């Protein structure tokens, strides 16, 4: 693990530590922060930058596209279930499908993913069964643990609180000389949390193999980015910490994949963290408990509809002759069917076990918790609730 202290000024390298603080040693050369690159490969009209066009097989392209369609189908079904009273409050990912799919596409199974809560498209790609995610959002404790063979963190509810542990996982990889990396995502709102700045700094100091994906989706519930930060360019945040940073069209799957691939390669090569600002838009609600008509104009949403990540990908696939309209319809139907199948499985799963609330507080239950559990079981028994 790299443990070198960051030097306050490169001008003093090789000199005594004390001398770096004397006025005479102050390097008065203006500091160049450099340019932040912006990446777009597939624009909103489905036009591709030929110099950057990736070379995927038709099957790979269809697979990528299907991942986004599946995420959207899941989103839509969850909303219906929630409005029917059969799902808890959840955070739709409508409009962010490319951003979410692109950030996990380059990951290997041994890599780790630490998502925020608006990431279920990515969680599905990482191997979370859809019925498992439904269980999670419907308030079942057993929905929270990642599936046994999936190296993901459970997502974060307190905004930004998952970013530091993600860096710690990366530091653990460095310590154990594992050639893996971590992708962690968070939003424009989370960028205001001190813990996120601390995470960028720790990752930079220890050259942790971490890819920070800041999903700038325009809104933190009702707070627009212009009230969140003085600069709308969140990629700048990395520069101050010496974290290579890039601003990416988050609705462009190719750009997201390319940026993440480069970042994961750097991470695996021991070159440390990268910050990707993914510019996207939260097309739907913050959560199902939210009503965005209170704070934002329909016209703003309509403008972003034209930049839909799925639409531009369809245009591209059609122009390349990879798929035709009837394929698009067939993929949509197939994804709907998958989601309905997951929903039916979810409906048939066991009810929640009210007796388990004590069981995971510690690895070995303390005497005091055993007593409290007995008391609680008596309460359940008095209410006629059977323990399993």
């Amino acid at each position: 693990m790299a443990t070198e202290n960051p030097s306050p000024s490169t001008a003093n390298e090789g000199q005594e530590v004390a001398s770096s603080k004397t006025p005479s040693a102050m390097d008065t050369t203006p500091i160049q922060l450099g340019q932040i690159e912006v990446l777009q490969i597939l624009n909103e009209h489905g036009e591709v930058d030929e110099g950057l066009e990736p070379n995927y097989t038709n099957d790979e392209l269809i697979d990528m596209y299907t991942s986004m369609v599946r995420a959207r189908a899941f989103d839509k079904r969850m909303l219906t279930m929630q409005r029917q009273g059969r799902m808890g409050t959840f955070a739709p990912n409508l409009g962010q499908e490319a951003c979410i799919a692109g950030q996990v596409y380059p990951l290997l199974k041994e890599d780790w993913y630490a998502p925020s809560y608006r990431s279920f498209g990515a969680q599905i790609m990482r191997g979370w069964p859809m019925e498992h995610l439904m269980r999670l959002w419907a308030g079942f404790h057993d929905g929270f643990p990642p599936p046994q063979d999936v190296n993901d963190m459970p997502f974060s509810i307190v905004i930004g609180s998952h970013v530091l542990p993600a860096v710690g996982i990366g530091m653990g990889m460095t310590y154990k000389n594992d050639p893996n990396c971590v992708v962690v995502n968070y939003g424009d709102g989370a960028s205001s949390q001190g813990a996120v700045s601390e995470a960028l700094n720790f990752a930079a100091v220890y050259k942790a193999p971490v890819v920070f994906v800041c999903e700038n989706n325009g809104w933190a519930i009702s707070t627009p980015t212009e009230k969140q930060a003085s600069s709308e360019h969140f990629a700048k945040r990395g520069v101050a910490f010496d974290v290579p940073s890039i601003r990416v069209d988050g609705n462009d799957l190719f750009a997201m994949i390319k940026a993440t691939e480069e970042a994961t390669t750097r991470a695996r090569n021991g070159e440390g963290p990268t910050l990707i600002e993914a510019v996207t838009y939260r097309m739907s609600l913050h959560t199902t408990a939210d009503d965005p008509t209170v704070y934002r104009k329909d016209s703003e949403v309509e403008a972003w509809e034209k930049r839909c990540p799925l639409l531009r990908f369809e245009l591209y696939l059609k122009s390349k002759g990879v798929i035709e309209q009837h394929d698009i319809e067939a993929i949509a139907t197939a994804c709907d069917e998958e989601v309905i199948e997951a929903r039916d499985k979810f409906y048939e799963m066991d009810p929640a076990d009210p007796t388990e609330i004590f069981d995971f507080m510690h690895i070995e239950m303390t005497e005091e918790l055993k007593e409290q559990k007995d008391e609680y079981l008596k309460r359940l028994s008095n209410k006629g609730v059977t323990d399993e």
Partner: protein
Amino acid sequence: MSKLTMVEALNLALAQEMDRDSNVVLMGEDIGVNGGVFRVTKDLQSQFGENRVLDTPLAECGIVGTAVGMAVYGLRPVVEIQFSGFTMQAFDQIEQNMARLNNRTQGKYTVPMVLRTPYGGNIRAVEHHSESREAYWAHTPGLHVVIPSGPRNARALLAAAIRSDEPVIFYEPKAIYRAFREEVPDAPELLEIGKANVVQEGSDITIISYGATLRTCIEAAQDLEEDHNVSADVIDLLSVSPIDTETIATSVQKTGRCLIVNEGQRTCGIAAELIARINETCFEYLEAPIKRITGFDTVFPYFQVEEHFLPECEEIVSTAKSIVAWE
């Protein structure tokens, strides 16, 4: 066997555990070359290397948060927060992740880390350097909160905390870091976390304390015995979460009288919790109301007057006498 101060005993525990398990890594501010501001990690960086003794950036939340991730990844981080008053910066990570990840993931990810931090007053320090907020952590579900009272138990408890798969808050009573020496065996020793120690046995009253005030209570118990013909059970709690209710109840059922001493603030403090438990387990045995001598519900005083805030021997003696005399 050598006679060590608590600082030296803690250093020994860290060195032996690092030697035993390469997954044990230390993280904290100024813990490397400097050996920590109290020198608990003295010479460990030169012995084990910079990748195992990390001088971190100055960010308590960052230290604890990244340690959580390292623990999830299979390491055993031992974090030093320079003073317990600075732990407030890390409250977020302790509450959201360190204490909860095991539960959140139903045991898929454990957090086998230790957060060591010096706590308590009487070192003539500036504001925020004298806090005793162990009750916060005892109130937080999912944590173990351990507080040694001398070199030998400090060493054995720290080794046990490092080997534990649970997240442990390890509060070090810095007022007695170097106050006295004790024989500490060379071979590793472990103490079971969650067990109190009956330091001395008596019949008239139970005095319960932990950390630095335990010494004051032992001194008071000697005075009570020698000058006032009162014999006291003295219990060293050693862990404020979990609390060893059984040892306390056994003692109070025998003596029927109890005094609790801790320097943390009174309201919702550890003494309050102990009184509730004694009420639940010993009510019909009690011969007198239980009393407590605690810190007051004020900010810890600026150090010119701190001696008046801390529980003193004389007050313990006189309060114990009044409990014994109560009819």
